[in-house]
């Protein structure tokens, strides 16, 4: 069998594919973070908590109300997005005019409250969410057996990221969002309800996180801390891509997932830190991030 660095090619390709699945989640989460940061200047530390809430919404919806996976893909982001809008109106909007640190602390506190509440209500051990029937099974790619659900995650994430990119870069609504990122006071002087736009953007960003949570529910254990472990990596992804850059967050999310997968093959000990090593190098060489504006 063909080998590279003494590792079978099939193993490498398999890890790259798994890395791509992780990268799909990184991309989805960092996308929402980038949009929120770009428009509102808020480093949303609660992003992981909203991802967790998305997964819990799917799980509890199924257990309590028999809501199936496909309905949860729509309902969970809507519910969590509404929750996001409420927290923006009640809490977050008061810190925009202060230093960014306040927004970070506030959302960090929000994340702790969400996690603590979920832990109190459902314990820390977590539950698994069944893979929907239509996506069960696996396909043989020749070099690996790929579970259909993981292929679905990659596809869905690419479609969602692509749609978001199109919305923001190619539509009137997107032009309004971009202009708000650049100079919100002037946009408001033109007659656009900027406070409403901000609330909607925050709702949209956390709805994306919740959608990622629903997608993740069948492949990871649904626990109150599932977002916590992920969000640290996602922040590194956003820094590497460039704070506020949509394209940057998607590309670097996918790329870093793949790089992580590759590291698992050639030097597994480094796979947990490789993203942060890259972040450190990027910060030294190009502080604004790979796609950020200097």
């Amino acid at each position, binding site marked *: 069998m063909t080998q590279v660095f003494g590792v079978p090619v099939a193993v490498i390709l398999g890890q790259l594919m798994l890395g791509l699945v992780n990268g799909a989640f990184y991309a989805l989460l960092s996308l929402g973070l980038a949009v929120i940061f770009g428009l509102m200047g808020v480093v949303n530390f609660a992003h992981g908590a909203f991802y967790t809430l998305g997964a819990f919404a799917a799980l509890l919806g199924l257990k309590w109300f028999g809501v199936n996976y496909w309905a949860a893909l729509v309902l969970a982001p809507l519910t969590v997005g509404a929750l996001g809008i409420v927290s923006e109106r009640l809490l977050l909007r008061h810190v925009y005019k202060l230093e960014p640190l306040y927004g970070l602390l506030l959302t960090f506190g929000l994340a702790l409250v969400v996690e603590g509440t979920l832990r109190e209500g459902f314990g820390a051990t977590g539950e698994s969410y069944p893979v929907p029937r239509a996506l069960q099974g696996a396909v043989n790619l020749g070099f690996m057996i790929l579970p259909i659900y993981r292929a679905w995650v990659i596809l869905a994430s690419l479609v969602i990221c692509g749609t978001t990119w199109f919305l923001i870069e190619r539509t009137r609504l997107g032009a309004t969002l971009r*202009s708000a990122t650049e100079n919100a006071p*002037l*946009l408001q002087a033109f007659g656009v309800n900027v*406070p409403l736009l901000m609330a909607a953007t925050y709702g949209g960003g956390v709805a994306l996180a919740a959608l990622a949570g629903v997608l993740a529910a069948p492949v990871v254990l649904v626990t109150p801390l599932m977002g916590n472990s992920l969000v640290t990596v996602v922040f590194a992804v956003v820094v590497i891509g460039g704070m506020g850059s949509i394209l940057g967050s998607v590309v670097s999310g996918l790329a870093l997932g793949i790089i992580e997968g590759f590291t698992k093959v050639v030097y597994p000990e480094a796979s947990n830190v490789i993203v942060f090593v890259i972040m450190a190098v990027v910060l030294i060489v190009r502080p604004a991030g790979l796609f950020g504006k200097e």
Partner: protein
Amino acid sequence: MAAELLRVTDLHAFYGESHILHGVDFKVHAGEVVILLGRNGSGRTTTLKAIIGLVGSRSGSVMINGREAIGLPPHRIARLGIGYCPEERGIYASLTAQENLLLPPPVGSGGMSIDEIYTMFPNLRDRGATPGTRLSGGEQQMLAVARILRTGAKLLLLDEISEGLAPVIVQVLSRTIHALREKGYTIVMVEQNFRFALPLADRFYVMEHGQIVDHFAASELEGRRAALNVRLGV
């Protein structure tokens, strides 16, 4: 006399701790072109910003078309039918020229069509796909004026639109203001460029230290020229 479209009474404006406007009073009738004169730092730009709500805080009264606007947020003030063109032009770099043009939402009925706007500013016609800030200074200024003509705003606040532009562009803008006046727009302008401003205005207000210190009609200008030159340091 035409109806009063804008009445500013005892307007004070602040940026943080600094008190910039100290009780500004003036009024503008529908269809008038009014120019605010004064030295740099006299508070003319802040007056325009305070009308639309873009200052830290403000007090006094701003009546627009009979509606009190002092307590409204900027987007509600704009929807009373105001178009604002800031001194720095405010062209968005991340938007194309076309997106910049289409950005401001309608704030009144009867805004100009895209065709009318391109007839008024032919230079903009083929520049639609260009990123906003890649346009020349003159094109950016035309775009900044053009985009508020689309919205149906009837009261235009124009801040130093002739500043730093080539004479040929200033002529285009001058023709534009004339045309807008013919169409019945009401315009409040801040201008430094006397030769540009004089033939356009119906009335002048002179500002100093955040207050109106003088006002006169265009017909009274000749007799006051010497005094005015001293006051403005021309």
